[in-house]
């Protein structure tokens, strides 16, 4: 099955890239854009077919490598 991990900065951690994007959008005339946060998406192809086990695996991967728990949070989505 496939897994999609979305990694973003924790609330409270300054995201300089998000801030620059916000300024650039304002410069282009897009109004009403407040806080912008830039994250990353990691897509994984897994041999595992059981959703619960797959989630457990990806959770362990996030903890071990994919996210830095000091500054980042993550969300896992699974798809067949």
């Amino acid at each position: 099955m496939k897994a999609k991990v979305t990694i973003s900065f924790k609330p409270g951690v300054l995201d300089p890239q998000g801030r620059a994007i916000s300024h650039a959008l304002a410069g282009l005339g897009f109004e009403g854009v407040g806080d912008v946060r830039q994250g990353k998406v990691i897509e994984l192809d897994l041999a595992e077919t059981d959703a619960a086990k797959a989630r457990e695996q990806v959770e362990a991967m996030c903890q071990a490598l994919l996210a830095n728990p000091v500054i980042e949070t993550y969300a896992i989505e699974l798809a067949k």
Partner: protein
Amino acid sequence: MKTAILLFPGTNREQDIIKAVTVAGGKRPSVVWHRDTALPEGTDLVVVAGGYSYGDYLRPGAMAARSPVLNAVRTFAADGGCVLGVCNGFQILTEAGILPGALVRNRGLQFICRDVNLVVGTEKSPFTGGYRKGQKIRLPVAHQDGNYTADAETLKRLEDEDRIAFRYADANGVVSDETCLNGSLRSIAGVLSENRRVLGLMPHPENSIEAGFGGTDGLPLFKSLLETLS
């Protein structure tokens, strides 16, 4: 003092560290490959040098922090061994959880490559014993992800335990958020571990060791290590 320098794919300051240790009067360091699982027998000091380990993929230092040699470094540090992480080495040590906090993209998003003013935060460590607390020094930096961040509790601990080794300052030695080079919280340029035997810093002391080549403000760090560890 027996020094071991870690070498990852993308490390590029290992020769500068070798030069600095020898100019300070130490023995020529050995270089340890990232796949090695043990440090050379009798190692006194491990240096995690600067560069772009693994091309900064995922996060700077993330891949290197999970490589086999880091397990040996973690054990070495836990046993009271001295570890110095410079620039990417600092990022690797935070990613490995050996030092607290994290280093994110510079406030201005730019790669900053120039000499910067620093103030020494503490002289109480094997690395900073050659400086005075409050001393102004000048060292080069070359980084894009040197913006130190940590939660409020960690920052308080670092302050309370006198573990902030260096802070960014202006030419008069004034430390403030406005004069901070890259957005680092509390203007932190370098931090010590709880036992004060691990130092991570973004500036490059190894590139300020000869008067004809940009100054000598980095030399006391290596001399202090030599005095402590020889």
